[in-house]
């Protein structure tokens, strides 16, 4: 008899707990949905400012960047994502030859967004952008040249003076 009572008790308790669980899902049924509708919210979507979406090299209005082609970023990169191709250029005014940036190649397809390049850059020439829409059909499209065509090194006299 005691067994029977326990048996019925267990069943009723089980049913009660099942119903409580169903209550939870029902509460969630009526909760506001947390889904962020990505393509729909493209206009309003705000990314976190520190989010690392893609490496960029900011250029100013005169198509000038800050990269001196020192190659520290390339050295710090764990997996060869960055290739800095430099060339020797003779300054016509002074006659001195110096290394300037020719191509700054960045392979988005193997970048691991570790931030080592940006943090190690002595010139703050590169930074992260928040863009994340990168998908492409061709692998080679992921290798980007970060410096614009015909861009030059920005003249930074003040910095050199203080140093």
């Amino acid at each position, binding site marked *: 008899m005691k067994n029977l009572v326990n048996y019925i008790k267990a069943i009723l308790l089980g049913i009660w707990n*099942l119903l409580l*669980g*169903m209550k*939870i*899902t029902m509460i*969630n*049924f009526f*909760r506001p949905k947390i*889904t962020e*509708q990505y393509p729909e919210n493209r206009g309003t979507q705000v990314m976190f400012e520190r989010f690392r979406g893609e490496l960029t090299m900011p250029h100013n209005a005169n198509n000038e960047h800050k990269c001196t082609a020192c190659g520290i970023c390339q050295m710090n990169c764990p997996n060869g994502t960055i290739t800095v191709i430099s060339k020797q250029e003779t300054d016509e005014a002074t006659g001195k030859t110096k290394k300037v940036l020719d191509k700054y190649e960045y392979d988005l397809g193997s970048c691991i967004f570790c931030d080592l390049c940006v943090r190690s850059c002595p010139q703050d020439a590169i930074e992260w952008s928040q863009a994340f829409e990168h998908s492409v059909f061709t692998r080679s499209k992921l290798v980007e040249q970060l410096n614009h065509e015909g861009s030059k090194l920005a003249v930074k006299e003040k910095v050199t003076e203080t140093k």
Partner: protein
Amino acid sequence: MFDFKVVTSWIDDLLRVQAGIPEFWTLAIEFVLVGVAILAAYAVLALVLIYVERKVCAFFQCRIGPNRVGKWGWLQTVADMIKILLKEIIHINKSDKFLFLVAPFFVIMGSILAFAAIPFGKGLHAIDFNIGIFYLLAVSSLGIIGILLAGWSSNNKYTLIGAMRSGAQLVSYELSAALALLTVVALSGSMQLSVIVEKQATVWNVFHGFAAIPACIAFVIYLIAGHAETNRGPFDLPEAESELTAGYHTEYSGITFGFYYLAEYMNMFIVAAIATTVFLGGWMPLHIPGWEAFNHVMDYIPSVVWFFGKAAMCVFFALWVRWTFPRLRIDQLLKFEWKILMPISLVNLLLMAFCIILF
């Protein structure tokens, strides 16, 4: 209330008398019409159900669910069906080719045959046997044969285990389902579905005086056992994804898989429909004895709406359960049937008999 007999006899009359088509051809045309109607209803319902499930599931999970294909995503399942119909069908080496192809047929046939026997509205059903309940129990087992064959013929270890599980599940839960229906047969005194519905004209079986208690218990038992039989809800062991990757239909691709997909949802609906017919008064409107005005208003709502409304409630309940509970283990499953549902069903049957005889 609108009687669908009017439509059918009008068509009959149109063909036979007005157009003067001979007897044989009239019948032939009518059969084709019925076939097309069944097929259309079947397909539309399945698509709607899949859509509903995905949407409801999403809402339970704090998501939105399909909303990009068509307004509110209502074309989602149409797209799915087009895709699935046009996928390659893969032939498995060393499988039992004949059984492999026949298996989906059983599954579809089981659900269509059961589907054809459901009274959707006043005068709106294709098959109405006087042993309707028996018929339903029989054809609903057909689907399991399909699952067993599918699992067996695929030459795959996962599918085999899935098939074995579904076999055990069916033989167990079939009993409770039958006993639950038996309880109502005792109350109605008939096995014919149309008669069972007619008997509920004044009051539905679940509100039937003292008999309401055993009827309600039988209702719940039937819902549980029915969903166990259709391999849904917490009883989806044969396709337990976390153990058997995709269960019995692992090797099915394209439309052959699509059949299982369709049939799963149709079976869910059929269980809801049978529960509606047998326990919730089928297409009968809600009547409260004494409230004549209220009853009168209720009568204005078409019978089909009543039927689908009630069935939708049962379906929603099934989805609610499915998206809340974890899956049972095979021994829990069998224990639940044989040690809980079975004794309760038997006792419930006796209770019902007492209720009917004594009150």
